[in-house]
Structure formats: C-alpha cells, structure tokens
C-alpha cells in the first residue's frame, strides 16, 4: 500500500509539471489555434538558460530565475514574430510541421552549447524529507507542487478579471469580432507565446531542481498531448487536472505493471494508451468545447 502511496505522490509532483507545460500549450491553442509541438523544447531551453546563469556564471538563484523569465519573454516574441506569423492562414499540417521543425532546431542548439550529458542544479532547498501522512516527501517536491498551484491561481484570476486576460478570451472566442472591438489580435498572439514560454521555463527550472537536466528533456513535450486531450484542448482547468491525472496514472500503471507482470518501461506509453481511449470515447476531453458542425 505504501508503495502505491509513494507512486501517487510522485505522480502528483510530475503531474503538476505536466500541468504547467500543458498550461502553456493551452494558452497558445486557445488564442491562436496553433498546436505547439515545441513546448517540451521550450521547457528545455528555459532550464538550460537558468542552469547557465546559475552554475556557469555564478549568479544567485533568484537573480538567474528572474533573468530566465525575461529571456523567455524575448524567446516567445521572436518565435511568434519570425516563425508563426508568416503562416497565419496556412493549412493545419504546415503549422504543425513548422513547430516540429522549431523543436529540432531548439534541441540542436541546446546540444551545441551544452552537450548531451546530464547537468545538475545546485540544491536550492534542503534535502531532508518532510513526513506527510507517513510518506517521506522531499521539500523540492512540495515546492514544485505549491508553485504550480500558485501559477494556476494567478492565471485563472488573470483570465477572469484583468483587461488583457478578457481580451485574450475574446480573441480565442472570435478573432474577427475581437478585432472589430479594437483588440490588437496580433499583440494577443505575441502575448500568448510569451506567457507560454515563461510558464514552460518555470516548469523546466523546477524539473532541473528535481532530476537534473539533459538534452532528452524535450520528450516531456510529448507527454503534454495526453494531458491536454484528457482535459480538453481549450480549457485551463482541464490542463491542470489533465496533467495531474496523467502524472498519477502513468506512475501507478508503471508500478503496477512492474510489480505484477514485471514489464519494464510502461511509463513511456501508459499515457498514450489512455489518450487513444479518450479519443475514441470523448475526443473533446473533460472540459473542452464540443465542436458542432452544421452544413
């Protein structure tokens, strides 16, 4: 029983990072209808920039954290302006493939600068475990969970009450109507890429503190699809819950398969098996908008 409790706790922590990355994905999809296959690579770039500033340049963690966020804003702006804007109005396959191309470019840049071996962040929090309900949990896990919860709260409030947030929701609902109400749709597109880059960088920094980082971190982006499909492609709440559920589910399924069938590595596909089932039963996910087609 304790084995499974530990798995659930681990799953929640990993799941909270999935949720963060899924949040970035959903923000982009909601505002611009672009499916971003480079989300995982944006996580990786953020993590490596923070690593370079903290370890290679010796800045204090908080300073490098803030500088990474600034860098992410610039990165998001550049990606939107240079790569995505020329493709407005192109067929969906072109948009998908341009983000796939972007992801290989980002990955190879990281490999060029930092190589492929694993890099470890200096510990920011003490490593003494805290006991919660009889299960030892590292403080960094709790920090990760709390931080992503906080970010979700901030963004929910931002979308609900702030002027910009409401403009973003309007753009998501109907671009033409938003434009005619005086909302700069292009600015909203740029802003959504910035937010997505910032959120994924934070996810990357948390992950770097937990496991260390290497050039395979980008594979995380592939785990985001099951999370967002489960939650619904255009729902923030869906992204949060979807990420957590997928995190827990893949950890528990992996543990179960290992214990009962001694089948290794089921973690890699568990989420995708779930994904196929959801797509068959309820393709718009738990909270997504159901698309109705009329002739």
């Amino acid at each position: 029983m304790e084995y499974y409790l530990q798995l659930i706790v681990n799953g929640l922590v990993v799941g909270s990072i999935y949720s963060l990355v899924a949040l970035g994905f959903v923000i982009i999809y909601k505002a611009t209808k672009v499916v971003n296959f480079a989300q995982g690579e944006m996580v990786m770039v953020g993590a490596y920039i923070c690593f370079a500033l903290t370890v290679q340049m010796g800045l204090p963690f908080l300073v490098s954290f803030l500088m990474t966020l600034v860098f992410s804003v610039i990165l998001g702006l550049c990606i939107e302006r240079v790569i995505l804007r020329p493709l407005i109005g192109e067929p969906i396959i072109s948009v998908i493939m341009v983000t796939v191309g972007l992801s290989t470019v980002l990955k190879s840049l990281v490999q060029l600068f930092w190589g492929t071996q694993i890099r470890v962040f200096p510990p920011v929090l003490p490593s003494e475990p805290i006991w919660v309900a009889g299960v030892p949990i590292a403080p960094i896990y709790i920090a990760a969970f709390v931080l992503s919860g906080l970010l979700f709260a901030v963004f929910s409030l931002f979308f609900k009450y702030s002027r910009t947030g409401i403009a973003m929701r309007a753009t998501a609902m109907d671009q033409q109507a938003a434009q005619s109400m005086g909302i700069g749709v292009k600015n909203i597109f740029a802003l959504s890429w910035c937010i997505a880059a910032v959120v994924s960088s934070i996810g990357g920094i948390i992950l770097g503190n937990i496991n260390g980082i290497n050039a395979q971190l980008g594979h995380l982006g592939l785990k985001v699809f099951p999370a967002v499909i489960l939650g619904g492609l255009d729902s923030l709440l869906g992204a949060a819950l979807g990420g957590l559920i997928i995190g827990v589910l893949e950890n528990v399924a992996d543990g179960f398969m290992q214990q009962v069938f001694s089948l290794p590595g089921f973690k890699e596909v568990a989420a995708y098996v779930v994904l196929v089932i959801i797509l068959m039963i309820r393709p718009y996910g738990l909270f997504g908008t159901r698309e109705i087609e009329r002739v």
Partner: protein
Amino acid sequence: MRGKCGLFHTSYASETRFFQSGFQKLSLGLFLVLLLCSPFFLSNYQVSMLNMINIAVIGAVALNLLTGCCGQISLGHGAFIGVGAYTTGICTLAGWPFFAALLFGGLVTAVVGMLFGIPSLRLKGIYLAIATLAAQLILSYVFLHWTSVTGGAIGMGLDAPVILGMSLDNDAKMFYLTFGVAAASVLLVANILRTRHGRAFVAIRDFHQSAESVGINLFAYKLQAFAVSSFLAGIAGGLWAHYTMYITPEQFDIMLSIQYLAIIIIGGLGSVLGSIFGAVFVTLLPEFLGVLAQWAGSFFPNISMYFLALREGIFGLILVLFLIFEPEGLAHRWRLIKAYWKLYPFAH
C-alpha cells in the same frame, strides 16, 4: 498538337494523360535508361545512395497519398514502416520466399494502418495527428519490448533477399529491385489519383462536408487511403530491412515519421513528382552537409564533434524555411521553371 503554341485539351481524358507531349516522353525515357545503366559507371557508395532514395520514394508517395491528397495527417508512418520491416524480416527468417514475405509485410501493415485509421472517422486535423502520434509511440514500445519476436533493443539480423535462387548481395543488384518496386509504387499512386478513388480523396481533403454531400462515403474512402498508404509504407520497410540487413527499434522512431512528413512538405503536398524531389533532397542532404563539414573542418578543427547536433538542427531549419518561403514545395518551383523555359525568349 503540331502547329499550336501551347496545350489545348478537348477532353478530360487528354487532360489527365501522364505525358502531355512527345518531348516529355522522350526525356523521361532517356532519364530512365540513364538510371538503369547507372550501376555500371557509379561507385558502390553512389549506388547505395540511389538505393536509399528509391526506398524513400516508396515511403514518400505512400505518405503523400494519405496526407497530401486525402488530407489525413499521419505522424505514425515511421512505425508503419517498422511494422513492414519486422513482419517481412520474420517471414524471410522463417524461410518464406522474398516476394511473398514482402507482400505479406505490406498486408499486415495495411491492417495495422487501417486499425489506427479507424479514429479518422470522428477525428480531424490536430486530433488525428495526435492519435497517429499515439500509434507511433505505442508501436515503438512494442518493437522495443516484445523481445521474443523483434529481438528488442538488440535488433534483428537478416540475410540479403534471394530471388529465384539469386542472392542480391551487392548494391548494384539491390538497385534493380528497389528501383523496380519504387517505379511500380509511383505508377500505382499516380494512377490511383486519376481514378474515382483519387478524386474522392482530394474532395475529402478540400472540404469533407461537401464531399459527403455529393455522396462520398467518408469513412470508407479514408480507410482506403490509410490501407493503400500503409501497404506501401510496409513494402518500403521490408525493402529497407533487407537492404540494411539489420533492424533495431530506434530506426523506426518518431524522427523517421517527421522525416517523411518533411520529405512531402519539401517536395510538395499532394504531388507525386514532389514526393520524388523531396526524397532525393532529404536523402542527399546529410551527404551534402558532410561535405560542407569537411570543408569547414579546415577552418574550425572540432566541428565534427558537433556534426550530429548540427545535422538535425539544419534539417529542422530547412523545414521551417521551406514552410515560410516555399510552402508549395519543390514541385511548384519545378513547374515555374518549366513554364519559364516554355515561353523563354518572350516571357513577360
């Protein structure tokens, strides 16, 4: 045709003819003769490049039929090629004749492709792309972990194909096999596109609701597209497996799917000629980069250390640049060049 300046079609049949002029027929014929003679004057290495191009052409026309013509995005073709490779390999190891194994590999892949194509009835665009991505990852997992059949991470060693007692154990002999199969696949796909089925595929891609309202059964035609496309992908896999004579699960990972999608985008979506251009371009790209790296090596001595990372990055960069500046691919550029020379001195 004589005496006219330009092409005038008076019937649908004349418009869908492969060769619009005698010159086209002649130049293609000469080119084919040149290709068939090429093993006699090219080096072994160059012939092996031709083999890789032939195999890539088969996979590319297959994917272009499904994605370019029928509009169903597939991120799973790398894995479908893997299914063909493993099935053909297992059959020849069990002593089947080569062509029977190749056909059976294609059929098994067609069934697998149709299975993963079933969601295409309800799913479109991005959802279908993600469903086929799931197919890719699940099949990759099966290749890696079904050790008793696929050999797992260690891989599977195969023999050179034996046809009528003759072993195709060198590049030149293999060339005639891959070239024959590639030519047959290109002809098959080009002909499918001229039939009722091909026109139905294009109608589904352009607007599925109008297609359905003129009486096209969406589900049946989409499944047909998946079946034909994965059949050819399986054939490409079987040939590739017996050409490299060793297969491991990493060969058929998501990068392969992305590479085939890149081929059809660089070549031109929905164009048979484009698939061939794309296959040539993407297969020769690493060679070209290798030459470039060697040349740059005299200025930056340790560039070869970064070569692998650079190669993937440049590949992605070329894909992005093509999508931004040449979204219709090389086939479109080829048409423009032809149109320019047709009216050469008097172009305006």
